[in-house]
């Protein structure tokens, strides 16, 4: 160590100011927009109170991008747009232009480079997803691979606006569900209690903290082969995996026991109905890389049942609210089981406490 070298102190600048990077028309009309419409899927047209107009072309990306992909998007942004871009919450890139004449050449350039234009209005937007095997320390699957497989299947629905309303899909690689709520959610579901490596627990884990993490109080301290460790009451265990991040020797993942579940009806927006959580449809799907065909098939069935039966502006959960769960299970062909009956705190409030029945 060279003690004469002083490490550089960080400049705590926090959130960067976006105004130097914002398209000049957006800067000029900041807070003064009047209305917008959509020219075609993937193209927004905003009109400011000043009369200024701006066109936005939205394209899908793979989110995990190599610098060459980003530079290619920049080249397109310089040549066909005006050097200003932004990203949506769902990793779509947006190019803003000040003239409608620039829209079609920009779309052509994006398509030629393999970037689908769409994701606006009542389309299926890009899936919001997590890191998976590529970078996470506790993943049950690889979100990027699941997402690539699903987006290939749904490419037409990204580039067209043919759904009753927008469809927001999420995936998560463990039950913490960093991907969040979705109209359809594809999430890892563990099926077996953790397998404990008793040689490592006392070396790696802060045992009281691990005990405290368990939502069903199924973990207790124990001496195993004379060593301080932890044990799990497997009858109580709900296989949530909460003990695994603070204590990696409590391995929750297994090549065959880590499964995938599909959920529906989550919604963040307040439009019409209040925000809702997604609900279980199918569990125990195989975690089947590299293309997860069983998962893709389940999502396809749900998506197209909604597309064919939903009314304009009904989100997926609102559609089910109208037709009822019996009809949903009929239309999609999935089984309704005891595992669909909630058993968690507040479960009773999810039951039908009325004489309202769908036939």
């Amino acid at each position, binding site marked *: 160590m060279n003690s004469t070298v002083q*490490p550089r*102190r*960080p400049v*705590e600048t*926090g*959130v*960067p*100011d*976006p105004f130097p*990077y*914002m398209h000049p028309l*957006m800067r000029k009309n900041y*807070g003064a*927009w*009047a209305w*917008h*419409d959509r020219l075609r899927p993937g193209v927004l047209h*905003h009109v400011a109170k000043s009369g200024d107009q*701006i066109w*936005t072309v939205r394209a*899908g990306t*793979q*989110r*995990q*991008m*190599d610098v*060459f992909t980003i*530079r290619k998007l*920049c080249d397109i942004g310089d040549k066909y747009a005006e*050097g200003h871009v*932004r*990203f949506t919450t769902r*990793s779509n890139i947006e190019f803003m232009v000040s003239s409608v004449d620039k829209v079609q050449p920009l779309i052509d350039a994006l398509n030629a480079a393999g970037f689908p234009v769409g994701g606006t209005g009542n389309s299926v937007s890009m899936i919001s*997803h*997590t890191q998976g*095997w*590529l*970078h996470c320390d506790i993943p049950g699957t690889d979100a*990027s691979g699941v997402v*690539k*497989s699903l987006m*290939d299947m749904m*490419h037409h629905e990204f580039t067209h606006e043919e759904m009753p309303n927008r469809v927001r899909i999420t995936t998560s690689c463990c039950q*913490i*569900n*960093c991907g*969040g709520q979705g109209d359809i959610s594809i999430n890892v579901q563990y099926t077996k209690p953790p397998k404990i490596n008793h040689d490592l627990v006392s070396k790696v884990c802060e045992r009281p903290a691990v005990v405290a*993490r368990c*939502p069903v109080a199924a973990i207790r301290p124990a001496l195993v082969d004379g060593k301080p460790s932890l044990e799990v009451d497997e009858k109580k265990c709900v296989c*949530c995996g*909460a003990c695994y991040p603070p204590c990696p020797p409590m391995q929750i*993942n297994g090549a*065959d026991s880590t499964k995938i579940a599909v959920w529906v009806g989550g919604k*963040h*927006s307040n*439009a019409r109905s209040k*925000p809702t959580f997604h609900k279980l449809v199918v569990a125990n799907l195989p975690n089947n890389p*590299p*293309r997860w065909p069983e998962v893709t098939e389940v999502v396809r069935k749900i998506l197209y049942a909604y597309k064919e039966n939903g*009314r304009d502006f009904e989100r997926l959960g609102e559609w089910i609210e109208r037709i009822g769960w019996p009809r949903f299970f009929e239309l999609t062909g999935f089984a309704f089981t005891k595992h669909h009956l909630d058993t968690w705190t507040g479960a009773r409030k999810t039951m039908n406490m009325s004489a309202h029945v769908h036939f």
Partner: protein
Amino acid sequence: MSDEDKHGQASSGEPPAARHSTPMLDQLEAGPWPSFVTGLKRLRDAGDKAYAPMMNDLLGQLEHSYENRTGYWKGGTVSVFGYGGGVIPRFSEVADKFPQSKEFHTLRVQPPAGYHYTTDLLRQLCDIWEKYGSGLIALHGQSGDIMFQGCSTENVQKAFDEFNEIGFDLGGAGPALRTSTSCVGHARCEKSCYDEVRAHRSVINEFLDEMHRPALPYKFKFKFSGCGNDCVNAIHRADFAVIGTWRDDMKVDQEEVKKYVAKAGRKYTIDHVIAMCPTRALSLNDDDTLDVDNKSCVRCMHCLNVMNKALSPGDDRGASILIGGKRSLKIGDLMGTMIVPFIKLETDEDYQRLIEFGRRLIDFFAENALEHERIGETMDRIGLPAFLEAIGVDPDPNMVNHPRTSSFVRTDDFTVEAEKYFERKAREAGLNVAAD
């Protein structure tokens, strides 16, 4: 070791080491959607770049994960000088097989509010990351950060220093204030009810110490959406959600309403706008103009979304604040709960009040939450009355779907509480109150 030497030489111009075969990942190159695998291979095949051998082994490890359906990363401790968080350390558990990617840390970097970039800026970020990292960047992670993925321990500080030199700062990780997000809002949306960039930057930049030196019981997230459409998913995904709204009447351009009805049809308008209003606040008149019962309207945004040109938010704008949204761990999912139905957001003082309310919540959380407890869980544990008292907010009927249905509560001070309510109402109405 000989393997490692080979890779080491690859970056200095020697022929590259043998590529790992990736038959499973190769299948993710087919199909119309942009392929992240093709991108990883581009980095692997960038022969003159220092990161090429690292990305070869990264692809090897990922293929190994696909074969065995198992992840092979573990955490650790890596940070930059002066900060305790913001770097996600990743050490490979199969470094013997894939030594070049044995360290593959992520730098979480806060993006400009609203995710605005110039192409020049993106190129600068790429150049820095190409020099010190893997060349792999996620735009953006679920917390809202730019995720610079894949950096050796040695290069973390160097990469950060260069990002920091061009005005970028690390985001949050661990039990800390986390990176925030805000919607496009004022920059390009007619529904935006407050200045999201201003709220986002002034709140987060006030509490950077809580982000850079993690000392909270657990994570704490702010998110900012300009209206009830909540495009950044704040209500569910943030401990502190700021959702734009307005108090006065929505604006109706009756000529545009008529144009909409003429185009969409009367039946369509009734079925898809009037009948879809959640509080039956709309009525279509015989002359195809719109009646709005503004006192019944809950600002859900549906009719404004559909009749975009005809309807817009009122002038008395600000935000609602919902507290306690979170995902599953530990007690189950929670949506944020309405705590402040309206905070005006217009003047400097208004934004200062928002910051002060944020401070009150962070202080409450720091002092009262148990280890690894989110504020939504603390609220549930102590009950809403105690929570409100602790943060100095009065009860309001907008906080509930309906009043309690259980009689199991001690109410001997009900009359006192009722008097406080009437005094509050009188004060709001500008009347003199005896207690003053």
